[in-house]
């Protein structure tokens, strides 16, 4: 195989740290820098302990090292407000940005659905939608690739402990972005997203419900097979992605009931919503790395 893609992670919080731990195991992507804004933050200290270079001066602090350290990929786990500037500065230096914020400047990416198509094009910024989107849009797509879906609706139920202050203050971003991606990536003509936060202790594992209204009589055998295939695709990067019940067929309605258990790298296992985001982001980077490796093999 070719050399690993060298990466910067921006945002040393829960997501950034979990992503770092997954990346340390990757055959395709190597974490080089962790970027934060507070030199005293636990996240930067943890990264330093894991042998990663750390920078506490924000993205500006790492820009002088991008070329020298041969950085080609960046993950932004900060907030929608600062993402646009982060992306512009890094894109100028030829770095591809994987956006884990709801900023959604670039196209949405749900790896088993459209990563293949995206990685064929020369895209500098891809957006990972939302946790609820990563957990549910593969199922919408599994139905819509068999039969037209006039309406797709997803309900994500997450534990109170797994939802940070940023998401809470901007919960409309979640519903809007997810609904939009249910349409654009999931293939539903109309999309709707609902999020429910549950404070039960011990915390519940992320649950997701997907309802599709199909056009015409549901092709039960083909939809069921497609759904099971797609579950397998997602399990390649999120082993705890499970179809608990369904697909249920009720007239035009096709419903799937899922549970997403995380790997428990840095985040607890119940926080499957966060795990599926970091796993999908890393999977995206790995796919880009593989494409680059194939391309260089051909030109060589």
């Amino acid at each position, binding site marked *: 195989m070719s050399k690993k893609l060298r990466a910067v992670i921006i945002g040393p919080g829960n997501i950034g740290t979990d992503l770092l731990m997954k990346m340390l195991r990757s055959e395709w992507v190597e974490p080089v820098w962790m970027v934060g804004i507070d030199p005293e933050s636990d996240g930067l200290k943890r990264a330093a302990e894991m042998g990663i270079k750390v920078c506490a001066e924000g993205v500006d602090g790492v820009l002088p090292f991008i070329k020298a350290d041969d950085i080609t990929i960046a993950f932004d786990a900060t907030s929608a407000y600062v993402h646009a500037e982060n992306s512009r500065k890094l894109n100028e230096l030829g770095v591809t940005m994987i956006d884990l914020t709801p900023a959604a400047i670039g196209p949405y990416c749900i790896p088993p659905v459209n990563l293949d198509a995206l990685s064929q094009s020369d895209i500098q910024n891809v957006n990972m939608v939302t946790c609820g989107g990563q957990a549910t849009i593969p199922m919408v797509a599994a139905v819509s690739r068999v039969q037209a879906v006039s*309406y797709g609706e997803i309900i994500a139920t997450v534990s109170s402990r797994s939802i940070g202050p940023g998401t809470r203050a901007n919960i409309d971003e979640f519903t809007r972005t997810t609904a939009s991606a249910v349409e654009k990536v999931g293939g539903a003509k109309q999309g709707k997203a609902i999020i*429910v936060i549950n404070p*039960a202790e011990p915390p519940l594992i992320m*649950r997701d419900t997907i309802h599709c209204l199909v056009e015409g009589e549901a092709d039960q055998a083909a939809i069921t097979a497609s759904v099971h295939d797609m579950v397998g695709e997602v399990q390649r990067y999120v082993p705890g992605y499970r179809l608990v019940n369904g697909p249920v067929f009720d007239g035009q309605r096709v419903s799937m009931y899922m549970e997403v258990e995380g790997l428990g790298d840095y985040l607890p296992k119940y926080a499957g919503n966060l795990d599926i985001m970091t796993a999908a982001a890393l999977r995206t980077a790995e796919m880009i790395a593989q494409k680059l490796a194939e391309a260089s093999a051909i030109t060589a």
Partner: protein
Amino acid sequence: MKNKFVKLHDMSLRDGMHSKRHQISIEEMVAVSTALDAAGMPLIEVTHGDGLGGASVNYGFPAHSDEEYLNAVIPKMTQAKVSALLLPGIGTVDHIRMAQACGVSTLRVATHCTEADVSQQHIAYSAKLGLDTVGFLMMAHMISADALLEQAKLMVSYGANCLYCTDSAGFMLPEEVTEKISTLRNGLPDNVEIGFHGHHNLAMGVANSVAAINAGAARIDGSVAGLGAGAGNTPLEVLVAVLNRMGMKTGIDLYKIMDVAEDLIVPMMDSPIRIDRDALTLGYAGVYSSFLLFAKRAEQRYGVSARDILVELGRRGTVGGQEDMIEDLALTMAKENATAETVSATG
């Protein structure tokens, strides 16, 4: 307490949507709201049962959109104001903008009692529009009075001018209502009103509302003939009669609201609003009242007792909005029952 004015807030056309599977017609909306207006009801809520944007597979598609209902009702009001409900995670600020354009005067932002901080953008936006902005803390039986006060303070800090203790499960007894309303009243600024929203699953709707008023609540929710989720809301015509006896003021004509109950609401009911074993289970197990019809439908479809489903939902700590859990759970319970039968047959 004598001569104290209590503002009653009608839920028949919003919470009542749950018991009508969101199928109230425009004609019924207009007939009920104009009759309530004529009876002196000061505030009437008109929205999908699950609030603005609730139209969905999960909660049910309504006969008409929120906008159509609001536009049909609001121009017909002579003195009554109209409110809308919004649950962050279901509706967005876009819905608030639409409701304000339709002419609602009051916006109520509802969250689970421990999750007030998801309401910041909606409460702030509503307050900025100059709407009477209410924070609505649901399933308030699940936490202590002090914890409820902390969440209420968050909503006040975002801009709410009225805070509700909401007994979504109809689980509370009067002593608990007294403690929670007193704690809110004593802990929040004087210019913030306190409200109580009850369900009648343990037949405590009226008694709890009286306890709330005595503890300092200035707004009370109820619905005519109880039309609402579970065993319904506090029956307003009964509450008006009780408050009359106590010498309190509501501005509502008792005979007129009795007639709305008898002549308009009861004939609209798909089935009688009463404390049947499933509604009683909601109150007894502390389960969100709008789960009732979903559990009954799951019982019919999957042959699992609605009561067993509701008890299990309570045991799992489900919260408002988790209607999707009901079919999922019924499927799982049906599988378990089938396995148990196979085992006993082979054993």
